[in-house]
């Protein structure tokens, strides 16, 4: 009797194993660049921010004209595992919630992002969907009108 019951189950398991893709993408390589933004008499954008150069000149980031890199981290994120790249001021945590890779479109990353300010208080908690490799810039306006941001880019 056990053999009779096991046969359909084995067949189903075999077909499911064959039909399912070998691996679902579950990690992404990320870069987090911590930025300090100020108003200065002479505009300044460091070479490390070349990929963001055009974006920094557009609103709302164009409110500042001088940027400096406070820290930079390259790290790997895994699905449902929090990663906290080290910042010079404050803290941020990124969780890869899902990867959606559909034919003809860029892989889509679903991220949970939190950021704590320089004072240690939570600034925001957000869920963002973005294409692989695109930048997300997030941060706060400080009391002196300077800006403190993290430019995050994750790609498969």
């Amino acid at each position, binding site marked *: 009797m056990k053999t009779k019951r096991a046969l359909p189950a084995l067949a189903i398991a075999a077909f499911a194993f*064959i039909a399912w*893709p070998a691996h679902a993408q579950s990690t992404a390589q990320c870069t987090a660049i911590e930025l300090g933004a100020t108003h200065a008499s002479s505009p300044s954008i460091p070479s490390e921010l070349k990929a963001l150069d055009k974006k920094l000149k557009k609103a709302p980031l164009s409110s500042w004209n001088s940027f400096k890199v406070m820290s930079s981290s390259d790290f790997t994120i895994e699905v449902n595992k929090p990663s906290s790249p080290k910042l010079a001021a404050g803290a941020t945590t990124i969780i890869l919630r899902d990867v959606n890779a559909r034919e003809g*479109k860029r892989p889509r990353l679903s991220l949970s992002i939190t950021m704590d300010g320089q004072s240690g208080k939570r600034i925001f908690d957000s869920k963002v969907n973005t294409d692989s490799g695109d930048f997300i*810039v997030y941060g706060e306006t400080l009391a002196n009108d300077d800006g403190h941001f993290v430019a995050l880019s994750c790609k498969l």
Partner: protein
Amino acid sequence: MTKPRDIDLMQLADGELDAASAARVESSLDDRAREKLGALRDLGTVVRGHLELRADEADARLARMWGEIDKQISPAAKVPAKKKAGAWERFTSWIDSHRGHVMTGLVSAGAVAAIMWWVRPGGSTTVYVPEGGGSGTQPASLKRQAPQVESLDTPEGSSGNVFTIEGDGDDDGSTTVILVTPDDVEGT
């Protein structure tokens, strides 16, 4: 000349007398005896006809019965000497005896495979060329999608704004900006 007895007439009607006795009885027949002999022959014909019909019916029933008996006897008679079955024969025999289960399993597996094929993630992430390294170019056919902020929670005393800075083209994607501003700063 003696009058024939009834038993002599009956034996004569049934053809049971030898030739001499039959001739002797026939020579002694008067009119009444002849009528009785005729009646006996008619009666004999009727009885024989009736019995033959009943016998025919019995023959049909017996033929059916023999047919059934023969069917039951035949398989036993046809069983050859048992030889040891090979692995393949045992396997096919097992498949035959469990045909229902096997078919159920195959149909179920086919349905599951079809579902898995249908819902599996599209495309292949393994052929995707990562950005920014080496040749660094993306296939132009890969369409970009606008960034989407599903939720943004900020503590009291501050406000959050989401901006999207559009890219210039395929090589320059959109950038999402999440900007949180304390209310006292915002008011200044």
